[in-house]
């Protein structure tokens, strides 16, 4: 009993001293709570469906950020991982009869292999060369998919695969919990030693190499990790939509991921996730003007970029928080002195 009280008190202290002092952390906690409690308030099938898909794509956008934002390996063919995950899960489910909880991780492993295969030739390239080369891989795979219609269903894709879960609410929880879990893991990875090395590779690869770190191995690791998370999202998508079609490999899919990530702000993980949660429902909201939907989407992206080229969320965060010049700890913008070292904030 005392132990429980102790932990409760500790939780309360952390909440008071670490979470409630920063608006961005409050928003993050609220985001978790709202997503987890949403089905309690509404059982609207349409709303749940939108948020399930949004969560699936949030994993995808965050995984792009892990590879291209943090490691700086501009990947324009992220749809490859998504497509391999989706097709892998669908094929395993249809021909081997494995249920979704088995096919999704296996499909993600397929995406890891894909990451290795494209990582090895691409490690010699950097910058724009890399971006333009990676664009080619999903298109090559799409050609193969079209050329083998017996196995992959060609243009129609593989349909009739197992449902993610029995009910809408269950699928919603699977997608949302997976999203929250994986994104937290990604955020943790970027905060770990490995993540710091990823970040350093982006800033100055030569300096990292001269520090005795095998950058090739770390870049390959980034490709594999990113491939795994994107593959999970592809598998979830295939089982949720119950179809794995060539649309998962399209160029527009790759571009979409880049738009989400850059719109939200790269090198943050939370930026791309937040961007998907704004842009994807927005696209659904605009369905009342069906013809103007994509045009308005493009217009919103263009306008936001003109005023905040670093992305939406870093811009917002800089508006409501400032960094202490002495101890580098973040404070609410309203404070005049730092909350830890009491140094005056300018």
């Amino acid at each position: 009993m005392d132990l429980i009280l102790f932990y409760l008190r500790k939780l309360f202290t952390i909440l008071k001293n670490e979470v409630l002092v920063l608006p961005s952390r409050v928003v993050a906690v609220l985001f978790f709570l709202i997503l987890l409690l949403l089905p309690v308030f509404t059982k609207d099938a349409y709303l749940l469906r939108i948020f399930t898909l949004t969560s699936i794509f949030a994993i995808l956008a965050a995984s792009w950020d892990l590879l291209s934002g943090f490691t700086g390996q501009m990947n324009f063919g992220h749809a490859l991982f998504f497509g391999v995950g989706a097709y892998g899960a669908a094929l395993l489910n249809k021909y081997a009869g494995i249920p979704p909880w088995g096919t999704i991780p296996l499909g993600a492993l397929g995406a890891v292999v894909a990451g290795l295969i494209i990582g090895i030739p691409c490690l010699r390239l950097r910058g724009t060369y890399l971006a333009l080369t990676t664009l080619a891989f999903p298109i090559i795979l799409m050609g193969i998919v079209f050329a083998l219609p017996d196995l992959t269903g060609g243009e129609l894709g593989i349909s009739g695969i197992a449902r993610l879960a029995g009910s809408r609410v269950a699928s919603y929880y699977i997608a949302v919990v997976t999203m929250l879990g994986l994104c937290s893991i990604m955020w943790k990875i970027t905060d770990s030693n490995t993540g710091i090395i990823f970040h350093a590779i982006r800033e100055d690869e030569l300096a990292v190499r001269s520090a005795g770190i095998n950058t090739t191995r770390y870049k390959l690791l980034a490709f594999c990790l990113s491939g795994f998370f994107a593959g999970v999202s592809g598998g979830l998508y295939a089982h949720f939509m119950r179809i794995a079609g060539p649309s998962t490999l399209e160029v527009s899919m790759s571009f979409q991921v880049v738009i989400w990530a850059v719109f939200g702000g790269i090198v943050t993980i939370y930026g791309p996730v937040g961007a998907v949660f704004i842009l994807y429902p927005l696209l659904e909201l605009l369905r009342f003007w069906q013809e103007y939907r994509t045009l308005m989407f493009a217009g919103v992206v263009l306008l936001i970029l003109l005023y905040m080229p670093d992305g939406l969320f870093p811009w917002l965060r800089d508006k409501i928080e400032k960094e202490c010049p002495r101890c580098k700890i973040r404070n609410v913008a309203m404070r005049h002195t730092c909350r830890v070292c009491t140094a005056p904030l300018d």
Partner: protein
Amino acid sequence: MGFVLNIIVSGLISGSVYALLAIGFSLIFGVARIVNIAHTAFYMVAAYCIYFVTHKMGFHPMWGMVAAIVMVTLLGIICYNIFINPIREHEGAVLIATIALAMALQEIMVLKFTGTYLSVPSLVKGYLLILGVKVFYQQLLTFCLALLVMAVLWVLLMRTKLGLAIRSTAQDKEVANLMGINEARVAMITMGISVGLAAFTGAVVVPLTILQPHMWMHPLIMIMAVVVLGGLGSLKGSFLGAYILGFAEALVVFLAPMGAFLKGSVALSIMILVLLIRPEGLFGVSFEEER
């Protein structure tokens, strides 16, 4: 014998189209370091512009071509000044801006002309019979005009003061600026030339293809492959790479079963194979690592 000629004709045509597009793409990348995803979207807009002038307004296709080139070049410069120039320091943002621009142009075309397949009459009618293979005059015209424009561009770049300014900006922006070249203006003019080339390509090739709002996707992928294959920023590389991939595509379409599906894959696989052997492309200079 017949299909060899078919392969040659189709390879030369698609090679020239890719060469024209890739040179424009390469030019603006070299000068301003902008990866212009919307490049082929301008090509599509030019094609629709011709359709509009000839079908809706009833003028001769010749006027359609002129109008398309002028209007689209202006459109390109306006878009550059509004959307790209203010955010040029942020590489990622420029990339997204051009993607969004391409999407916006595509959607405007869908709204204006619907998504149905359209076609445009050719500038010159009739065909030539060589070894039992029909070679349309329009194909010959496209090929000759493409070569002519590339020659004009070469003279412009190598023999004029503007060309010198463009080349020196591409080599080193800071030094060019110090030598009194207005870098921002050169970038804008290069954007104009680049979009103008795309518009011209759209204008000459439109009678040979079908018009639809998604027609910019395939050429975009191909010119990206061409540019990587030839070496970024190298015009000679883009020229050669375009013909290599053009012929590869034609060969696959005519010889392999399911060729139409595989043509993109094979061309892109060639690009990756070349990159494995020469990471900087055929004629690329490996850029000094920027720190």
